[in-house]
């Protein structure tokens, strides 16, 4: 197992290390370390997408979904979302969620089936709820470690999940909500014919941040 990175670490140090590895790689004519760096970025990005999914995929995503640089805290995702209310909207949201999940999780994995079921159920439950969503996602992402042996990998990360919206109570009054929780996640991957895919996630509330 090779440890690709351990955070927190100053960005300058990371860049210097990457530059040094790339230089050494070029000097000795070996691209393994460059591939490893690419794997690291892919794994981190997939980990972010896996953790954003349950927060955003139940909704129609109206804005940007995932930032390109998942390694920078605070910029992981900030999508604008809305509850799908029409038949077409529900169908589009279901299709969008299914497609997104298939690009994240290993094909045929129990995790993929479970996520699809959970989010499909949420989309249907949300319809007619009177909920108006404003935003949902994760922020303050920090990667503790990215470990890979080439065929499987594990990413350990922390982040803050959030969901912002307004409910309509039975008496008609508007009830805003904006919960956020600090989370700890361990995401495991398998290297498939289509590249890295998430095989499982263990996501827990940080102590003191439970609902």
């Amino acid at each position, binding site marked *: 197992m090779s440890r690709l990175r351990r955070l927190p670490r100053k960005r300058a140090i990371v860049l210097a290390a990457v530059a040094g590895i790339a230089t050494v790689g070029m000097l000795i004519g070996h691209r393994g370390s460059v591939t490893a760096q690419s794997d690291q970025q892919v794994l981190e990005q997939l980990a972010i997408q896996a953790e954003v999914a349950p927060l955003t995929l139940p909704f129609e995503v109206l804005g940007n979904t995932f930032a390109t640089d998942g390694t920078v805290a605070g910029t992981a995702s900030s999508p604008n979302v809305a509850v799908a209310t029409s038949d077409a909207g529900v169908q589009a949201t279901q299709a969008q969620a299914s497609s997104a999940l298939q690009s994240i999780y290993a094909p045929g994995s129990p995790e993929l089936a479970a996520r699809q079921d959970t989010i499909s159920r949420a989309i249907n439950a949300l319809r007619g709820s009177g909920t108006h969503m404003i935003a949902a996602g994760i922020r303050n992402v920090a990667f503790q470690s990215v470990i890979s042996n080439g065929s499987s990998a594990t990413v350990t990360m922390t982040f803050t999940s959030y969901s912002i919206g307004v409910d309509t109570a039975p008496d008609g*009054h508007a009830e805003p909500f904006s919960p956020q929780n600090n989370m700890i996640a361990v995401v495991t991957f398998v290297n498939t014919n289509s590249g890295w895919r998430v095989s499982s996630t263990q996501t827990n509330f940080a102590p003191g941040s439970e609902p």
Partner: protein
Amino acid sequence: MTSLSKTLAGAIGGFVLVSAALCPAHAALAYNGSAAAAYADQWWNSYNPSYAQMPGDDCTNFVSQALNAGGDVWAGAQLANSANDSYWYMTKQPPLGPWYWSNSFTTAGDLYTFFGNSGRAGLVGIYYPPANYQGSDNASPGDVLFYEWTGDGIEHSAIQVAYGQDPTNSGWYGSLVDQHSSPRYHEIWSLKPTNSYWATTYILVEHHN
């Protein structure tokens, strides 16, 4: 006292101590949901020294204590830990020895399984916060709510204590729960004000028989 009588006395004394450890502190013939709710209201923000404490992971331990206060008696108690979900207990080796418990006493999914195995409580509804603003009208004080956040299995439990207005989040009205980890008093059943995963959460309501 002869050595034999001393031995007998010691054995009897030991039996009494062990029996005291294994017997529930609040044995009763019928479950009293109001008593369970009153216990939850008393201890929602602190730990009862009569039970082992599990700071940071105390939700089901707290619910089980309330069930015990409501009259639920130990099932299969023993001086050892157990993963058998037909058991439900928390005991202590007398007089100062370590605590022992069943997984069902301290872990939400195991308590849910114990309810099914024992018949002490039964599922009366599955609720989705997005579709149920006020929540479980058929829950009564002393009933237990189990939470599954994102499809990973049951991960949390709380106890229904009242129906009305959430005193912390005044706009919310419906079934109210007490819980540990995090400690909350008369919180709205859905936990929506504090749960960013509310959209994928579903809640199983178990009515105590």
